[in-house]
């Protein structure tokens, strides 16, 4: 029988196709792993409702487990809804190194005129940055620019 640790190790080899520096465990979308005698069940949850990467991720898991002779059943769940709080510290560091600013603690988004969140530039670390657009290159990112080094960068927006 395969050990549960081995399953988690394998899952760490599956990467988000849109943020290839993050594996799906760091991203926090793997919710549970259940073991039976010869099979295992992996439950994953989407980051956003329309995340086009979910299908690819499921296929990647299937392929990898097949190569390792492990039968896997993949289930998708919506509740509880994914939050950026589930991204691991390790994941946040990887994002920063990759040039994507990780989610910051944001105030309640229902407060429209609240003070803007300070998102430090992932390159020069300056806190003097500005939001260009709430929406970025993928559903999970916003578009920012650094006022110091002028570099445009992605911000992995806070979702709670």
């Amino acid at each position: 029988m395969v050990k549960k640790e081995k399953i988690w190790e394998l899952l760490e080899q599956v990467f988000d196709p849109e943020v290839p520096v993050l594996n799906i465990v760091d991203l926090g979308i793997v919710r549970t792993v259940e073991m039976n005698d010869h099979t295992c069940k992996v439950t994953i949850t989407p980051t956003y409702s329309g995340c086009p990467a979910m299908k690819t991720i499921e296929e990647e898991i299937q392929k990898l487990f097949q190569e390792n002779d492990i039968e896997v059943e993949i289930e998708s769940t919506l509740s509880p809804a994914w939050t950026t709080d589930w991204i691991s510290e390790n994941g946040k560091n990887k994002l920063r190194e990759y040039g994507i600013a990780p989610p910051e603690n944001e105030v309640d988004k229902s407060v429209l005129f609240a003070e803007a969140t300070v998102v430090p530039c992932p390159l020069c670390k300056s806190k003097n940055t500005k939001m260009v657009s709430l929406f970025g290159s993928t559903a999970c990112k916003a578009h920012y620019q650094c006022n110091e080094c002028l570099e445009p960068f992605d911000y992995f927006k806070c979702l709670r």
Partner: protein
Amino acid sequence: MNKQEAILEYTLRIADDSLLLGHRISEWCGHGPILEEDIALTNIALDLIGQATNFFDYAAKVQGEGKTCDDLAFLRLEREYKNVLLVEQKNGHFGDTIARQFFFDVFRKLFFESLSKSTDQDLAAIAEKSLKETRYHLKHSSEWIIRLGDGTQESHDKIQGSVDYLWKFTDELFFMDQVDELLIKENIAVDLTALKANWKSYISEIFQEATLNIPTNGWQQAGGRKGLHSEHMGYALAELQYMQRAYPNMQW
């Protein structure tokens, strides 16, 4: 009408709102006024289509006839779509799109907040998920309403014109019939009358900031929830359904 039929109808109404508005906004792809806005609108379209997918998946499960999400999205006839008239209206100019989006986003945020407390576990889960995305949509459309309304004379006049034109489709957001009544008793559906005051007060707050007036014209147009659509619906469906009609069961 039994409970199962009511849940199916109720779920399709929500799904159709998301699908049609998602389709409409996706028409902006490549046509946004600036690159960032092009990306923003298509992101919102993607969220809405994703939400529609989740609601259609659930509707197909409730229906229990072996149909798929795609069957429901692409293979029904016009009168079987139950979306409100607001979401099928043409994109018009950017202000028209933003005004339509704003009225809908304010409603949707309040609606999902309530639906996430539904005793129907599936509806509650999809609502909880969708709510987080809708908050971003609302922030986006609210900011544009203020920017356009409190912008130049031209932008102010244009957005006020959009608001005045679309106002007649807003009452239908709060349409309820026996489907809702039956499900409200079971704490499944949202009592929309309870949302209306909050909807209006949020809009008043943003309009005040945007120096815009809430229209006083009382005439309201409805029909979408009963399958009676405006002429724009046929054109939207023609494009939406073309592929499945021309090449039945095709996949890619």
